């Protein structure tokens, strides 16, 4: 920790030498952007934020941080709203948004080499020109970083068909400042280094370790991501479902067909948040919409040639009708087109939080069969603390593994009200604990989730700590993350 003003000044001066003084942010207002988000992770103001433009600058910054033993927190896009980008008090923020180049697009292989600052909207525009698209998340806005979203294995609409490994080989700046390339990228002669899982010694360990690593083990400064086909024809569909218990059966039947290219299952709260018009009266619109929406909606897209879609639609109609569900291409004023637009350029939490001012989510992996019980439990807990049940949102992203889903429970919160914040925090913590007991797996352990899950995964955690100590002996890389303790 930097103890004296002189040391701080020296650090800032050194940073300015690396990135240029214009790219060292000291302004308190601007630093607010980094210091907190909706999560319950204790806010903290960084000393400053450095905005590098090249990999070399990133390396230099990290070497400097080691020298000064000052903690570093990377951010590549919007805050992840789970506390992942909140710095240590007086620590450094390394803001990679300036590194926003799309370095290469291989149109034959449908791969793109991107820097961390490349956003979904940016890459979407480029891809769309060539009949391709970039897979997007439900929770995060199009203005956020593709690289860090994929790196964190954030659930994507496209997971239902394409799975979760969409960022393959990467360039990592290690906590020592050295550069590491993973997978085929580790071999300089390979011109198209797209494959991550195979090509190197200890490939399984070395090429996967960085996923979900929350900036703890290094900073990914470049990576190859997969682009997917837009489809000559794109259509969205809805299947209204009344009871959570009915979701698993129909979902299984649809998954068995393997037709949907994007999918999300939302309860009325999250669905309304997604599609209510963003305006000064957003909250009213949301509440109005909720009145007419079914309890649950399975929302998905079909993409491909027209004749393929025709076949898929026929099969889907057979399946839905046989099982007494409806297959609709419009729902309560939400058109297919709107869904496609939302998926192409998601509004994400930046919009949805406007319902009450803040949005807290518990993200986890589970089985679709667990969801009804989990939902009931969360509603019970909400009731217990007096949180309005109708404000509990659920977004389920099916993975391409039939039955396994990424789920998040959301709680709208008024950040201006300490009582409300306290209430929601209580609901959040108790729900998080209860969900674990009901089978939730916190694969992305942020905040309190880190404490909850690692207490049950001791050996795994010990090994991670061993790796951390070895790779980052000065403990400068995002040290507030992945801790036991409760606050983080």
């Amino acid at each position: 920790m930097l103890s004296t003003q002189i040391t701080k000044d020296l650090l800032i001066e050194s940073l300015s030498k690396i990135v240029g003084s214009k790219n060292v942010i000291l302004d308190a207002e601007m630093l607010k952007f980094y210091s907190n988000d909706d999560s319950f992770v204790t806010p903290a103001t960084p000393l400053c934020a450095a905005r590098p433009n090249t990999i070399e600058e990133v390396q230099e910054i990290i070497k400097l941080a080691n020298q000064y033993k000052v903690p570093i927190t990377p951010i590549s896009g919007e805050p992840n709203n789970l506390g992942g980008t909140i710095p240590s008090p007086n620590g450094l923020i390394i803001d990679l948004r300036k590194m926003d180049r799309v370095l290469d697009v291989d149109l034959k292989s449908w791969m793109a080499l991107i820097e961390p600052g490349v956003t979904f909207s940016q890459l979407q525009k480029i891809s769309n020109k060539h009949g391709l698209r970039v897979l997007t998340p439900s929770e995060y806005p199009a203005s956020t970083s593709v690289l860090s979203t994929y790196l964190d294995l954030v659930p994507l609409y496209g997971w239902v068909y394409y799975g979760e490994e969409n960022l393959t080989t990467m360039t990592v700046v290690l906590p020592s400042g050295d550069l590491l390339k993973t997978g085929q990228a580790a071999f300089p002669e390979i011109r198209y280094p797209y494959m991550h899982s195979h090509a190197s010694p200890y490939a399984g360990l070395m090429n996967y370790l960085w996923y979900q690593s929350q900036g703890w083990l290094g900073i990914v400064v470049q990576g190859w991501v997969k682009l997917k086909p837009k489809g000559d024809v794109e259509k969205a569909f809805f299947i209204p479902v009344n009871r959570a218990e009915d979701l698993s059966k129909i979902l299984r039947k649809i998954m068995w067909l393997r037709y949907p290219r994007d999918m999300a299952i939302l309860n009325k709260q999250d669905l309304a948040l997604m599609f209510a018009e963003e305006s000064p009266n957003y909250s009213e619109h949301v509440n109005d919409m909720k009145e007419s929406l079914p309890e649950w909606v399975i929302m998905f897209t079909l993409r491909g040639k027209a004749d393929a879609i025709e076949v898929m639609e026929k099969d889907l109609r057979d399946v839905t009708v046989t099982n007494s569900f409806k297959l609709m291409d419009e729902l309560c004023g939400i058109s297919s087109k709107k869904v496609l637009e939302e998926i192409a350029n998601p509004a994400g939490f930046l919009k949805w939080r406007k319902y009450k001012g803040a949005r807290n989510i518990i993200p986890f992996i589970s089985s679709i069969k667990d969801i009804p019980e989990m939902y009931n439990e969360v509603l019970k807990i909400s009731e217990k603390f007096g949180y309005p049940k109708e404000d509990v949102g659920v977004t389920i992203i099916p993975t391409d593994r039939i039955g396994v889903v990424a789920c998040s429970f959301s709680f709208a919160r008024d950040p201006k009200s300490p009582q409300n914040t306290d209430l929601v925090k209580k609901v959040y913590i108790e729900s998080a604990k209860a969900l674990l007991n009901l089978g939730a797996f916190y694969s992305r352990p942020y905040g309190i989730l880190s404490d909850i899950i690692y207490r049950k995964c001791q050996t795994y955690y010990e090994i991670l700590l061993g790796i951390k100590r070895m790779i980052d002996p000065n403990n400068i890389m995002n040290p507030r993350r992945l801790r036991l303790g409760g606050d983080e």
Partner: protein
Amino acid sequence: MAENEKIKIIKQILSDIVGTEWVSDDPAILIAYSRDYASYLKFDWKSMCPQIVVLPKTLEEVKAIVKVARQYRIPVVPVGSFGSQFSWGIPRAGGILVDVSRMDEILQIDEDNMVAIVEAGCPIFKLQVELLKRRMFIHQPGACSTFLIGSHFTHGITNKANARLGYVNRQIVGYEMVLGDGRVLRTGSMANYANPRAIWPHGPGPDLGHIPRMAQGSLGIVTKVAVRIHPLDEEVKVFQPAFNNVDKATAALDEIVKSEICTGTAMYTGFKYAQYFADTPESADRLDRVNPDWMLMLSLQGTKRWVEYEEKKVREITQKHGGIIITDKLPFYQMFEDAQLNQSASLFSEYTIKYWAYPGTIGAPAGMVIAPLHMYPKYFKLLSLLYLDDPLLGDPDELDVKWKRGAIVYPEQNGHYAMFELMMAGHPTDPRLVREVAPRFGPKYFKALVKLGLRLDAKYGIARPGEVGIIPTYMDLARKMKSLLDPDGIMSPGVWEGV
């Protein structure tokens, strides 16, 4: 302590742990583990035996074995089916060989979440049999289905259905393994000791979910594997579009994977196909003469309606690129449809043995290149030129089947990358392979690959630590990881060059 005294003591301790009948230091028992298919090519005719063989049955026994090995600083080499073509299981420094074949139970089949948990010694086909009864299957790596899930899913890479199902890394849902330091690591959602269900391989947090992959037993011993299960569709059909031109065949395959149709999507040279399905070298040669040069092996799966659609598209695409569908033309190929039905969905891979039987197809010195699908024609043409240029490989008198090239191409998802597998037929004892062909052909081949921006896959145990560029950092970190997880360096020493 004298070496043999140490071995006697260790043998006694191990006997106390697993029972005397499951431990042996008898030379007649040890020798069975001293050679595999390619080891003579690697170790220059050295037959490398372990000092003790032990067959544990439970996780606790495996833990105890590692503990003993640490205490006495003796190497531990875990082996599965021993069918590797790359000699991972050969003990390079003696030690205790741990044969997991007694741990062969199917522990759980979770149909709701489409995951099966098995012990590491469970043969692939054993699980398949149970799954087929439920109209499901696992997507196994391309190799004999008698191989064990524990070993093969950590080494194997791909098979025909990877365009839809992904490579083998995407089949893993979690591992349980005993690390070189004796700790038991469970990955993914299995890490939660209070509820070790297998649904998700990544995390919690930084992803150790594939840690045994490409570690060749040098980080620990896998004791359990959770694998994904896939549904077997109501309709499965097989088509083999044939082409006489590698560019057209590749273009057709590329269009198929980019159109997101077909489950089995591989491309073979006609000779490769002949190798699989002929009974003798002579009949392989005869078959090869009438076989087309290139064949796509496609399996169409789904509802009846969807398969009809896929068939329509496959015919269109075949015609567009100037091919013909030989399964229409020759009843001979219909005969293999039954076999192919299984294989296209990667159910059994029995054909793999046929091509080894062939006589003796050497994969080890030939090689695996992973590159975007569109690179394949360039790669193949380059290889053909190099072959022609080689005095032995290009010798028209050597045109007997021994030196023919078989090749398979397996694209992943939409063809982002594909595995180019090259197999050079030859008997493992043919001295010309190691003494003449490899030293002469190898360097030329590597140089030519670099010109195309390609490289032989490092799966072959050759990390080439002397290369310039990034490799030193990678290898340095790999070594550090190894010393962290195996502090006494007992796990499979020497198995990765440079680590």
